[in-house]
């Protein structure tokens, strides 16, 4: 296998790979921003005092967490047109990624907020801070320390999940590997290059998260 490994073809396809690499970055970046927004809102609804309102967010979070992303992707890809809603593949893909990751983000943020001792919130109320001031100055700064590592972990998952978008014919890294396979019958060159590009993103995010972890320990020590 390795003796026939053809680096020239990889070089020839490099422009395609770079284009697809930036597409992967763009798709997962958009998904990440969307997921953070959806996650924050879903978490706020989940923590609502009203039982019914909280239940709605609960149904969303649990149904997303109990079904695979691929099924959700197909659900929107095949389902939205039958409702008469026509989106481009990219929009459908980002939509599915956002909703999927949003549910996990909501759980991560909720765990962070609930890790704050109740006395802190009571002290905030006693000092006369309103809801937003309490959130801004007491809860969120403390919750960030607990949530930042799982959030980074989830964004690694998000980048990897974006590979599924190739199945609804969006041009991204995995699709580039598939193209090399179908055009030149060179799956080894195609998919190993794809894997290498994903590893670049993975190691950057992993390095960043261990840097954050060190900083957090440093801060706690004081």
């Amino acid at each position, binding site marked *: 296998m390795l003796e026939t490994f053809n680096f020239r073809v990889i070089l020839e396809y490099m422009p395609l790979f770079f284009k697809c690499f930036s597409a992967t970055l763009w798709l997962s970046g958009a998904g990440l921003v969307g997921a953070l927004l959806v996650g924050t809102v879903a978490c706020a609804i989940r923590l609502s005092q009203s039982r019914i309102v909280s239940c709605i967010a609960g149904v969303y979070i649990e149904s997303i967490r109990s079904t*695979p992303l691929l*099924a959700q992707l197909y*659900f929107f890809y095949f389902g939205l*047109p039958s409702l008469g809603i026509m989106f481009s593949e990219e929009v459908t893909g980002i939509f599915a990624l956002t909703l999927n990751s949003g549910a996990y983000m909501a759980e991560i943020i909720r765990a962070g907020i609930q890790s704050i001792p109740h006395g802190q919130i009571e002290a905030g109320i006693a000092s006369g801070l309103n809801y937003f001031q309490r959130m801004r100055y007491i809860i969120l700064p403390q919750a960030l320390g607990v949530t930042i590592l799982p959030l980074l972990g989830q964004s690694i998952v998000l980048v990897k999940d974006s590979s599924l978008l190739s199945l609804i014919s969006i041009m991204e890294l995995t699709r580039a590997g598939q193209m090399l396979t179908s055009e030149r019958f060179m799956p080894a060159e195609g998919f*190993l290059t794809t894997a290498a590009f994903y590893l670049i993103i993975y190691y950057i995010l992993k390095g960043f998260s261990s840097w954050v972890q060190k900083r957090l320990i440093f801060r706690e020590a004081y």
Partner: protein
Amino acid sequence: MWGFYFNELMRSLPIFLKGLWMTVSVSGLSLIAGTIIGFFWGIIRSGKGRILRRLIGAWVDLIRGTPFLVQIFVIFFIFPEAGIQLEAFPAAVIALTNLAACFICEIVVGGIQAVPSGQREAATASGLSAYHRLRYVTLPQAMRTILPPLVGQYVLIIKDSSIVSVIGVIDVTRAGWLTVQRIPEGIMVFGLVGILYFIICYPLIHLSSNLEKRMTVVATRL
């Protein structure tokens, strides 16, 4: 039209049930094998052999850093070039087992590290052999940390098993994909797919969070 399609869908229910059985058998086999291999790797990785430790660490990083979709393409398309011809089912089980083993290895390492080192020293001082230390001192205490994320990981693996549908394993997702070509109601077809996954995953997610609660209670009582 909805009524007609619904009846059609009900008539193709046997395909979905067959698919469900396929999902259960692929993920069941991979989970059993993956748990055994994962524990084995995890124990080696938290042991003393430096080269083995590095090797397993690098392999785990490679697998965690690349999407499962790419891994399954590598096994299914590149192994034949090296002369290893695999059917779809064994390829799926091998890929999923490897994925499960890597994630479980990390969980086991975390669990073993959470056991206070004084416990191990005390066991050594009592004259227990390495095997007995592991069997009677380290692992029973580590299990408390390992069990909740382990069950959570099982859910993730069952959901990842949906990806093996792309190499032609007829699991629930593939059954949905095949059916949606005939019954153009994506919402209905993939709603059914989602319900089938939900039936498997939802109880497991609850088991995981219950275990987490119970294990922390035990930990604080000590």
